[in-house]
């Protein structure tokens, strides 16, 4: 069968998700406010007091971790959407089987889900960014640039999540994804400490090759106005996202159309 993605059809799959969200956003949205609040209070204000007094950082610890946490929350938004949510629609709801009996093809469905996950990560990351403003993040025009950066982080992690979901057959396998990929990414991608100072050289290289490390560098670079390396981070996230995203769209088509 021909595999041209119809953007209008993909947009309607996105719209379907928006309708579901529209009916119940108030359940899902509130945690999106509390999560950053708790992180910034607990780690930034609380732990940060002791860390900053040691003088390891050129800036307040809270200000150091905030941009990284923004990137991480975009990652989380994208990950939940493309793992559990997509898996359930694929296997239990048989929702996609129903969608593809219309003008919509499976490639459009996968693309629409991808866009939707980017939207969700933009909501997560965007709110986080907003909350940081109440914690002494300097208000500059650069914060506007952080918004597309958050979307790019969502783009990359949605593609990774979709690619993973498109190859597994058992829902329990997601615990590996979160425990062995998302959690270590969160802890060792330079959000809380500069890995190059604490890790042995061999592991530094590994940490720096992970998508979240690049995402943290990107958002932090933009917020602090340190532009060196930003171009590389953008390219990295774009390439990884596109390659895995295309793979995921292809795989998901093969899962449903058989």
């Amino acid at each position, binding site marked *: *069968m*021909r595999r041209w993605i*119809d953007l*209008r*059809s993909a947009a*309607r*799959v996105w*719209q*379907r998700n928006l*309708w*579901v969200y529209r*009916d119940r956003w108030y359940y899902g949205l509130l945690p999106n406010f509390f999560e950053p609040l708790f992180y910034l209070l607990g780690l930034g204000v609380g732990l940060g007091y002791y860390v900053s007094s040691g003088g390891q950082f050129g800036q307040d610890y809270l200000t150091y971790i905030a941009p990284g946490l923004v990137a991480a929350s975009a990652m989380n938004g994208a990950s939940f959407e493309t793992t559990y949510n997509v898996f359930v629609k694929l296997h239990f*709801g*048989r*929702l996609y*089987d*129903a*969608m*593809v*009996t*219309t*003008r*919509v*093809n499976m490639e459009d469905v996968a693309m629409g889900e991808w866009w939707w996950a980017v939207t969700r990560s933009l909501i997560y990351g965007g709110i986080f960014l907003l909350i940081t403003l109440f914690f002494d993040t300097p208000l500059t025009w650069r914060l506007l640039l952080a918004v597309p950066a958050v979307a790019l982080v969502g783009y990359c992690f949605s593609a990774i999540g979709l690619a993973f979901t498109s190859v597994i057959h058992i829902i329990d396998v997601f615990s590996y994804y979160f425990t062995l990929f998302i959690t270590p990414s969160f802890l060792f991608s330079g959000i809380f400490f500069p890995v190059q100072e604490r890790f042995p050289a061999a592991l530094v290289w590994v940490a720096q090759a992970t998508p979240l490390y690049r995402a943290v560098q990107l958002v932090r670079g933009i917020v602090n106005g340190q532009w060196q390396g930003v171009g590389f981070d953008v390219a990295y996230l774009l390439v990884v996202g596109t390659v895995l995203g295309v793979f995921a769209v292809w795989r998901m088509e093969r899962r*449903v*159309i*058989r």
Partner: protein
Amino acid sequence: MPSPEAVVEVRDLVKRYGDVRAVDGVSFEVRRGEFFGMLGPNGAGKSTAMRMIYQVTPRTSGELQVLGMAAGERARSIKERLGVVPQMDNLDEELRVIDNLLIYARFNGIGRVRARQRAEELLAFADLGDKRRAMVDELSGGMKRRLTLARGLMNDPEIVVLDEPTTGLDPQVRLNLWTKLEELNAQGKTLMMSTHYMDEAERLCDRLVIMDRGRIIAEGAPQELIRTHLPPFVVEARAEMGEGRGLEGAATRLGLAAVRSGDRVSVFVGDPDAALASLREQGWRLERAFVRPANLEDVFLKLTGRALRE
């Protein structure tokens, strides 16, 4: 008189999954305006054939045209003009009843205003007018089925494809759905239905194919199929314990076709009274014997030696 236009044309269609030939070279056509049926047991290949027709399963080989368009190549255009009611309800449980209909219109590229209007018409048709704001899991089984049917009609399709539409429904609910389907057919829609219920096929279908093991084993109008393959009546007789085989033999010796299941023997006859008299003359009492018209189930039994549902 020219024969009506064929809206589905299937030639030597094959679907293979590994070594399994789910559909093993079938050919048939569906004509505009008719109620076409595919009758056969589970695993006969009906669903797979239908999925190929509604463009969600690629074919292994063979030719397939729907509404004059080549399958696969023009999948989107074909799907836009088909209505599909799948075997299992796969309604969107996260959306309300009305939104289930509206989003389907959107999927098919229908504008907002037209979609609203169509949704209202179909809510009325499906007797779901007072359920429009309900969530799907608040609906009964019959309501879900009607909503699935309504959803398949949102794009005002030229052909409605129904895959075992009444499997698992209560008799009352089935009857209700049949009426809806007859109504649609009367409005001029082409309907194509698979089923493993012979009563459903016999009541609804103008013409049908009987499928078994991926192949078509008979084709025609229900009554014509029965006439072609069987005498018009069946004597259902129960022999005394352990005497079934003997009764079957007796019928066969009289030159009658008979099928036995335990001590129950079905004898296919042209003249039931004469047959019963002959058997009784030979000493069979047949107290609880009764006569019924032959049906499609019997045709399947005769052609395959197996019952439709076992």
